[in-house]
Each structure stands twice: as C-alpha cells, then as structure tokens.
C-alpha cells in the first residue's frame, strides 16, 4: 500500500489529497477540450463546468462563462465525454473467477430465485471497480449470473463511493428472466433434474408467476376484509381476518406482475426468443430484451416488439453455418430497424473493455454516434436515469471522462475520470503493481 502515493505521479498524488475539498467548494472548469455531448453533437473547443456534483454549464470556449473562483483544468487536445454505462456486469460479485469463495454470482440450489438481491452481496471494495472506472466506465447494471431462469434482482451502481450504500444508486432496478437453455439442469446426464428441458423451464416459470398472482390475490382479499372489518361499528363484527404468511420469493415477483418494473428477457436463438416473449406477454410483463445473438432470422419481429435490446456480447462466436460477422453485425442490423440498443460487457474483469465493443460494431455498419449512445444515453434511458446520466447536459450528474482521443478506440488513454464531480484518483491495484515494478 505504501506505493499508492509513491508510485503515482505527483499530479495524481496531489489530486488525491485535495479533491474532496475542491470538489465540494469550488467549481471545476474543463477548458479547451472536444466535447462529445451525445445529446446535442460535438463542441470542438468547449468548456464544461462542474459544481456540487452536477454539470452546471457547457458550450463553446469564449461564449461560456467560467465562474470567477472556478479551478480551471486545461484539457486542450483532449476528448471529453459522459461516463460510460455498462448495461450488464457482475462487478462487485466476483474477485477471482476460479476462487469460489470470492464469488457471489448466483444461487444454484433452485432456478426461481427472484428474492436474491444483488445489493446484499455487492462488494464495494472490489479491486475490479477502480480497474473498470479507470477506463471511463462510471455506472453499471450489476446482475447475478445467468444460470437460473430467475436468478435475482439487478442493481444500478455508480463506480465510486465510500460504501456500498453510496454506490448502489437503484436497488432492484430490474429482474433478469433467462431463457437461453443454459438454465437447464441437464449436465452431467446422471445428475439431470427438473427442469432439464426448455419445456420444464417454461412450465416452472409459468407456475412461479401463477403462484405470485395467487399470492397477490390472497393479500388483496386480506386487505379488503381487514378494511371492511375496520369500518364495522359493532365490536363483535370486528373479528380480524387471518393475515397471510409473507413469502419473499413471490413478493419479489409482484412489481413485475404489476408492470412497475421491467424484466430483462434473455434469449439467444429465435425460438427461445419467441417462447420467452410469449411467456412475458402471458403475464403482462414489461420487458427489455437481452443478448439475442442468434436471432438474426427474426429481427423484423424484434423490431415490432418496440422494446430496447441489450445486445451481444458481439464476440459470441457465430454458428458454424453463419458468416464470420453474423454477430458482429447484429447491433447495426437492429439499429437499421429502429431498435434502441445498449451494449454490455456481461463480465466483471473485462468490463473495462465495454467501449471497444461499441467501436468494433461500427466496423460492421453501426453509425458511430449510435455506438457511443449505446454505452451512454441509450443505456441511461433504458434504465430510467436519462434525466441524470448519459450525456453532457446542464443539470446532469457530473460523470465526465477526459481522454486523449476517441473513447471507442483501444489506443485511447483515459486521463481523468470525474464521478459526481469528484476527481477520481487514477490508481488501481494494477497501476500500483506497474509503478512498483517500474522502479518509480
């Protein structure tokens, strides 16, 4: 640990010591950079002001007033863009993949586990978090692993904060419903158990939602009887009804049955996609789609659903009968049909590479602006935080990235990350090892 400061450059060391004070009291002005606003185009030589954790002004240099007491950071030659949003990760649920005791990814004892809450396991001090945010990723959906049909509930996090409480911006933001076939309990063969087929998966899901509907009805009946009893004037009519037992599992499904929150519906192949969509419709679930890597034959149908798609990862290998770029081109194909897309890492250690996936998709026809939106504003809108995140706009949270070039390119080095206006120390376990062995 003694290398934290010794190993860092002097500048970073100073920032580390002075940041909390400055960010609280003084406005910070980034002056001279190229602003990729995402929402309203590019400002070539721009100024961006951050105050009290928010973006308070931005515009062209010269025509944007900089508050007198603002600390001015010259970012000439730099590119400034909103913090990137990973629409599905396992950050905070794993540390070393092969070391089981460091994993809290998914409960495998049952397939229907909607009462598992990511926030109960989210490890705020994970070494993976600084590594990820150093690449400009400031927010992420944290989801349980997809080995259950209903593995639990996602949280939306900010990748900086003193504690899990500060970082967990929205708990139980959405619930994955996985229908890719990987949720079957059919391997190895001699340990096969229900559900070992897609039919079993669907039947089990259907039963779970029916049980939850019944459960909701029991409570509604109870509440109705109780209020009727309460209004009775005669003392002998006031015999209260029996309160149903609480069932955390069924309770967890209610916001989704009531359409208050979205289910994240994961399927890969067209047949699974259609089964999953039909299931969601059967119970009037609101949903966004996830993956659909092998649903190329039904993209027109996908467009008719008018729901966003968390796409990919586009690095999924195509089927043997498909052209090499069948999955690479999926984001472009969806975009062409007017489908709103967002990218996700579906990873933890490699979540930092999220922007490169967006960049790569442009090589297969996705327009650049749409690629950038798919890891910023689209994601923010899909997760209901479009008023706070995802673009450089006045009033939004000051999650702002300073880099020496194109955010989607592997060559680009992220120089500074601001999260809620705070200048994040550009250090991680990895930079400390680098500095220790660089003899600095």
């Amino acid at each position: 640990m003694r290398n934290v400061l010794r190993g860092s450059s002097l500048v970073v060391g100073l920032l580390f010591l002075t940041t909390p004070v400055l960010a609280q009291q003084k406005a910070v002005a980034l002056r001279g950079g190229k602003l990729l606003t995402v929402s309203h185009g590019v400002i070539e030589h721009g100024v961006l002001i951050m105050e009290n954790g928010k973006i308070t002004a931005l515009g062209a240099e010269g025509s944007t007033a900089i508050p007198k007491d603002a600390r001015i950071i010259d970012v000439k030659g730099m590119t400034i863009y909103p913090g990137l949003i990973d629409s599905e990760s396992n950050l905070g649920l794993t540390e070393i993949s092969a070391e089981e005791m460091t994993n809290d990814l998914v409960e495998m004892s049952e397939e229907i586990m909607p009462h598992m809450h990511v926030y109960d396991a989210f490890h705020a001090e994970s070494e993976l978090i600084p590594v990820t945010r150093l690449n400009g990723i400031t927010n992420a959906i944290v989801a349980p692993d997809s080995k259950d049909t209903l593995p639990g509930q996602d949280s939306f996090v900010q990748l900086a904060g003193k504690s899990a409480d500060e970082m967990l911006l929205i708990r139980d933001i959405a619930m994955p419903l996985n229908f890719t076939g990987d949720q079957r309990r059919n391997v190895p063969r001699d340990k096969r158990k229900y559900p070992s087929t897609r039919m079993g998966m669907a039947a089990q899901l259907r039963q779970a939602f029916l049980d939850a509907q019944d459960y909701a009805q029991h409570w509604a009946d109870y509440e109705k009887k109780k209020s009727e009893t309460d209004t009775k004037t005669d003392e002998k009519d006031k015999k209260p009804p029996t309160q149903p037992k609480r069932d955390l599992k069924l309770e967890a499904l209610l916001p989704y049955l009531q359409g208050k929150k979205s289910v994240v519906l994961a399927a890969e192949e067209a047949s699974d996609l259609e089964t999953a969509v039909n299931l969601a419709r059967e119970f009037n679930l609101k949903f966004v789609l996830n993956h659909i890597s092998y649903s190329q034959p039904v993209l027109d149908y996908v467009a008719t659903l008018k729901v966003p798609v968390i796409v990919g990862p586009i690095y999924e290998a195509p089927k043997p009968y498909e052209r090499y770029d069948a999955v690479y081109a999926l984001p472009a194909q969806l975009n062409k049909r007017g489908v709103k897309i967002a990218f996700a890492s579906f990873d933890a250690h490699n979540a930092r590479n999220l922007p490169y996936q967006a960049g790569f998709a442009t090589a297969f026809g996705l327009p650049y602006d749409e690629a950038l939106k798919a890891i910023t504003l689209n994601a923010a809108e899909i997760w209901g935080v479009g008023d706070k995140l995802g673009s450089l706009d006045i009033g939004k949270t000051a999650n702002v990235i300073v880099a020496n070039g194109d955010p989607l390119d592997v060559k680009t080095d992220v120089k500074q990350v601001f999260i809620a206006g705070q200048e994040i120390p550009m250090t991680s376990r990895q930079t400390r090892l680098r500095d220790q062995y660089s003899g600095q």
Partner: protein
Amino acid sequence: MNRIAMYLVLLVGFSLSAFSQQLPSAHNEVVIKNAIVMTVTHGNISNGSIYIKDGKIAGVGKDVHAPASATVVDAGGKYLTPGLIDSHSHIALDEDVNEATSPITPQMMMIDAFDYQDKAIYRVLAGGVTTSLLLHGSANMIGGQAVVIKHKYGLNRDAMLFPAAPQSIKFASGENPKRVYGSRDQLPSTRMGNFEVQREALVAAQDYMREWDDYNAKVKKGEKDATPPKHDLKLDALADVLRGKLLVQIHCYRADELLTEMAMAKEFGYKLRAFHHALEAYKVADQLAAAGIGIATFSDWWGYKQEAWDAIPWNAVMCMRKGVRVAIKSDSDDFARRLNQEAGKTIRYGGATEDEALQMITMNAAWIIGVDDRVGSIEVGKDADLVIWDGYPLSSYGVPNKVFIDGDVYFDRSLPGFGMPHYREGE
C-alpha cells in the same frame, strides 16, 4: 524420434503436392498496388506495392518491377500488413487438448487431433491470422507436441500444415496441473509436486539417452551381442528436449515459477523458447531478457484465477522495454479473431510504437514459433501472407478486407456468403 521426423517429412511432402494442385495457376504472379504497406521490419511505405511470385514476396516498394501479365489488386489506399500470427491457439482440436491421464505426455502429437474442418480456422482467418501455433492445454506438466498451421480454410488437412515448421513442445506449470491431478488425489497436487514430476521425467530421459549411447558405443565397437534398449516414445520426445531439437513453450504465470523453470532448464541443459501467459513476467523481465526467452502474453486479461491476479495490462510493454521478445497471443477462439485490437492496446498501455505493437502479432510471434525467417514481415523472399485492412489495423475499427496466404486470396470480405474463394458450404 526418427519415426516422428519421418512422419513430418512425409506430411510436408504431401502437403506441398496437395497445395500445388489446389492453387490456381493464374495467381502465380500478383501485384498489390496502392496500399499503405506496414512492413514491420522497415517502416511504412505509403502508396506502396508488393509483387508476389509463386507465393513469395518478390518485390516491395513505391514501385515494383512485375510483368504486365501479373494479376493486379488495387488496395484502394488501405493498410496492408503481414498476415497475423497467433503463437498460442487451441482451435481446431475438437477439445482434445489435454491427455489428462498422466502429467507427463510428451508423446502426444497435436497433429493427430487436428480438425481441419473446424470453422474456427475460418473465423480466425477472417480476423487476419494466417499462421497459428496449435498447442496442447495445460493440464499436464508436459502436454505434447504442437502443430503449426496456415489458415488455408477449404483445402485438405495436410495442405494447411505450415511446411517444415520447427516442432514445439508444450510444458505447463502452476495451478492447472495441480488442480487436475490434485482433485483426483494424485501427484502432483502442489507446485512442489509439479516440479518433482517434471524433474523425474527429465532424469528418466537422461538415463534413457545414456542407455542408447552405451548401446550405440557397443555397436560401434563391433559388439555383436549388444541388445538395443526398448524404444519409448515418451522418452524419445524428452530426449529431444534435452538435445535441443524441440522448441520448449511453457505455460507459466507466476514470477517464482518462471525462475524455477529457467533454473530447471539450466540444470538439465535445455533451452526455453517462450513462456506463455507469463502474466508476472514484468516482475522478472531482466532475467527473461538475459536468458533470451520470449513471452506470449495477453494484452489485458486478468483475475480469472489466483495466478492471474497480479496481471497488469502494461506487462507486454514493460517486458519489451527490458529487451524481452513479446508476442500478444489469443489462447481463445474469440481473441484470435481480433488480435489486431489486442495489440493496439499496447499503444495505450505503456506507449508501444506502431511497429512495436505490430511486431507483437507478427515477427515476435513468428520467432516464438520458429518461422520468423519465412513469415511475420513484408520482405522479399518471405511467404506472401498478407492482409489488406478496412480501417486502421491497430484500432477498434481494423477489419480485414482481404487475406492472402502464399500469394492466394483465402478470405475476401466483399464476397457473399462466407467470403472464401476456396470454400463452399456442402462441397
């Protein structure tokens, strides 16, 4: 071992004849013009041309002298690089990468498992890779002998083998052998056990060599009743390690194990070609450089197991600056399709130059495989394994437009279907 050498000679002979049958003669002379030629070894040539004759590079420069009859390919101002080289791949092996029934299996020949119809060969070709070293897995301390292929998808098996490539042997260390055998209550289950098993095997090989030396000496002296020792494929292979006939490629993560492997090589008098993964190489880069051992590493993969916990994305460039020959490899069906991006990351993590980044997926990888005199750069006399790129290759946007191997086009993005002139589904 002679048997194996013979086998290879036979294969090579066969592959050459098979190849010439399938190569259209019209392509014997080709000129690619109007390209930004990234030679790797002597800088970039803007508006450059390459003259290809009989599958070899016969001219490179602003202008080349070629007969008017040569086929002309206009690169349209795009970047042109040598074919990429993956120095650590497990594709096309139908998952038969580990004979995990014994920790020492040097007699396992990858060629015997090579599945030349695996579409992964095509997908990787479409990513600009023309040569791959197909290695055993890391379940065993000594896994077996590798095969080097050219990605000529659509040809027959033997036509895909890299002609007369040196033979590599794969060693491993660390977590994988101890996990595989430890989980069965077998030796090895610790790093002590790992190295003991390796040392034991090498000692047996020394004994075996001595027996043969004794026998050969007796024969030379004319002793008629001398009985030859029993041929043992496993010990033959290990003897070839000790004789320096095989390129030793070692899967190894931790710095202490890199040093132990080096010490063992010294103890038994064999040379190491490269450490693979080598995620902690940056901690002992001086020693690796001094010993002339290369590394084939990831750009930024980390944390997937304990021995990958100290991995840092600056590893490649930190080692290179200390004089280690560094390759970026895939070890993955996925990364192999975009090695160019992985190499591009070294520009960001540590400030590799364009040439240095490109070397890591061309020349340096070729050196690790032992074919750097044949491929890995654009120079006269080398194989015409070339990639024309859409976009800048060392970026998120670089995608192969055309891939040539031995002067012939094996992938062309502009073609419909799979984009392969030599392959049609179902034929």
